[in-house]
């Protein structure tokens, strides 16, 4: 545990904050996108923005796998869970995401569907072995960090010849999403969104390495710093981005040197390549159809693909038109810009997915940050 508390030291934070204050040019603004919802969560949870100069703006990106899942895929998972023969296994934070008619896995579970919350895909194996008469489906979501674990589940199921296990695959890719944002008209054509650099997610890069980002830095002339999820990691990454901006450099730097290499985890990459292949296109909430941005299960493992086993055909579902999740996920709007924020939409009754997951920008803002807009009297 000492290993974590060291990265949360308030004293070192003050030193770093002073360095950042001294480094920024007062006559310009710095707008950095933290791609990953884990970073958004950390920024709010530790009150990081209180330590930053007022001309540094953090833009929250689409890196929350729960938030970017389109409603149609939630509907598919709900429909799978409602099949009497199915036991649907899901990570915790997908359980409350509302689909069409606000039906979530948690709601269909209450109505009698067999939905199990799991911590690790290995639990799915245990459940499948224990329930040979049922179809056990794993609702797999996540970026590159969680993909190898799903790949391992499929390989083990194949080795054991488990015929009652399948995976509803929703694994998505970070670089494709960043490229999509950088190519969006808001950033390129009509610059409504100033983006001076990216904080890249360390956990993703422990798997894919830092190399996939080199293309963006070069092509779009934006610095990328791959950062850990502890608050000091983030502060240091922001300092590194400020330096690159000031020096007009745009390269990939790794702040999280304790686990990220340029090449990443080759063993995990091989495993993923054995089981998965690129989808030609995949719908992201907020970003729309993004080419080559998601994975599907390869033909040799097709029998473990829940989409094929249950003939899942995803419908595109339109979000509530008043919900600004799409624009928030692209960094164009902030949670407070949404009319529904805090009124109709709050964590007990989320309209959009950004309010559901703890990593969503709206939930983080609502849970940790909304007092900043209200007058608070001093003691006595």
């Amino acid at each position, binding site marked *: *545990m*000492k290993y*974590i508390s060291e990265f*949360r*030291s*308030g004293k070192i*934070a*003050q030193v770093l*904050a002073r360095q950042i204050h001294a480094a920024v040019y007062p006559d310009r603004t710095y707008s950095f996108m933290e791609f*990953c919802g*884990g970073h958004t*969560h950390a920024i*709010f*949870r*530790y*009150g*990081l*923005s*209180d*330590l930053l100069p007022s001309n540094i703006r953090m833009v929250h990106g689409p890196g929350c*796998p*729960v938030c970017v899942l389109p409603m149609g895929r939630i509907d598919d998972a709900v429909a799978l869970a409602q099949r009497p023969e199915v036991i649907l296994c899901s*990570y*915790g*934070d997908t*359980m*409350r995401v509302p689909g069409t008619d606000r039906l979530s896995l*948690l709601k269909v579970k209450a109505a009698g569907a067999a939905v199990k*919350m799991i*911590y690790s895909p290995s639990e799915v194996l245990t459940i499948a072995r224990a329930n040979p008469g049922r179809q056990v489906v794993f609702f797999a*979501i*996540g*970026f590159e*960090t*969680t993909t190898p674990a799903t790949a391992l589940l499929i390989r083990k199921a194949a080795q054991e010849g488990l015929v009652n296990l399948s995976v509803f695959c929703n694994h998505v890719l970070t670089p494709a999403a960043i490229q999509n944002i950088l190519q969006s008209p808001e950033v390129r054509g009509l610059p409504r969104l100033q983006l001076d650099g990216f904080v890249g997610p360390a*956990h993703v890069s422990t798997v894919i390495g830092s190399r996939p980002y080199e293309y963006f830095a070069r092509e779009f002339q934006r610095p990328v710093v791959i950062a850990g999820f502890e*608050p000091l990691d983030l502060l240091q990454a922001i300092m590194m981005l400020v330096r690159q901006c000031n020096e007009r450099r745009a390269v990939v730097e790794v702040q999280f040197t304790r686990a990220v290499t340029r090449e990443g985890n080759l063993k995990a990459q091989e495993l993923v390549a054995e089981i998965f292949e690129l989808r030609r296109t995949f719908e992201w909430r907020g970003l729309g159809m993004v080419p080559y941005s998601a994975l599907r299960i390869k033909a040799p493992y097709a029998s473990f693909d829940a989409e094929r086993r249950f003939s899942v055909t995803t419908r595109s579902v339109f979000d509530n038109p008043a919900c600004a999740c799409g624009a928030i996920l692209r960094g164009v709007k902030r949670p407070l810009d949404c009319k529904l924020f805090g009124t109709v939409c*709050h*964590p*007990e009754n989320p309209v959009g997915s950004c309010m559901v*997951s*703890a*990593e969503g920008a709206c*939930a983080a803002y*609502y*849970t*940790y*940050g*909304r*007092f900043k807009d*209200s*007058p*608070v*009297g*001093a*003691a*006595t």
Partner: protein
Amino acid sequence: MTTIRHASKPLDYTRGVIDLSHGSGGRAMAQLISELFAKEFANEFLAQGNDQAILPASAGRLALATDSFVVSPLFFPGGNIGELAVNGTVNDLAMGGARPLHLTASFIIEEGFPLADLRHIVIAMAHAASNAELSIVAGDTKVVERGKADGLFICTTGLGSVPAGCNLSGKAIRPGDQILLSGTIGDHGVAIMGCRANLGLSTQIISDTAALHGLVTVMIETGPSLRCMRDPTRGGLAVTLNELANQSGVGMLIYEDRIPIKEEVAAACEILGLDPLYVANEGKLIAICAPEDAPELLAAMRSHPRGQLATIIGEVCSDPRSFVRMQTAFGGTRVVDWLAGVQLPRIC
């Protein structure tokens, strides 16, 4: 209740299990009551053997509290559902300043439940009751078919007497008041979740289940500036503070670096993706008192074994929106909000 012996053979605590006859009102039930419950809980009121316990009336005000216990697993590091069922209700009474006097206990048992486990739990309850200096004076037993209960549910109701002049209320909190916490947070919840998730940690995390009436007694002796007390059970410290802030229409500011938490609990919370502020406690209390008397109250708490790690974790401020805010150890400030739904682990 009855103490008449009907059965030819004593209860089999090695291989015996509860069956539907133990709840049917017949001989099996009478045997279960007399050989287990009446024997372990023995006291003069239970010995009356009627459908009710007749208790002497006491002068002054009474406190009454009830609670149901459905914990899973039933046995966890540091205790079992039996201790929890006694201590939980004792603490509900104690938070009003009441000295616990009597308890009733209802058992809903699933068919097939091992008698050995039931005995273990009943003995734990008897110990907890004796520690809390109260008697279990009435009870009830129901047996439900297999699959209709998760092993065993217990409901306890407690009666206590409130000392004259003690007027604790969640509505009495004022800006400037100090917020005190009696010890480390998250121990119980993490002990339970650690069992469920089978974390296999090298250090075992033990539930903090304990009766707090003794600690409360030394606290209320410090005088009338103690505004209120509450035990942060479900929803943890965060939810309890929000309840109090709302009740009194005030805001609160707490300091993360003053909140005691065991290293292993913090580590387990990291692994499970939980925020310890929202994790349940079963042997801790929050006290709010006037600022001038906070040092004296803190000293009183620290003088008691259940309050050795007590600290002042923050203060009450005026805030029409009743926000509970926390200055993070990192140096920023954030809201400590109500829990939305249930705490769900994050995936990355």
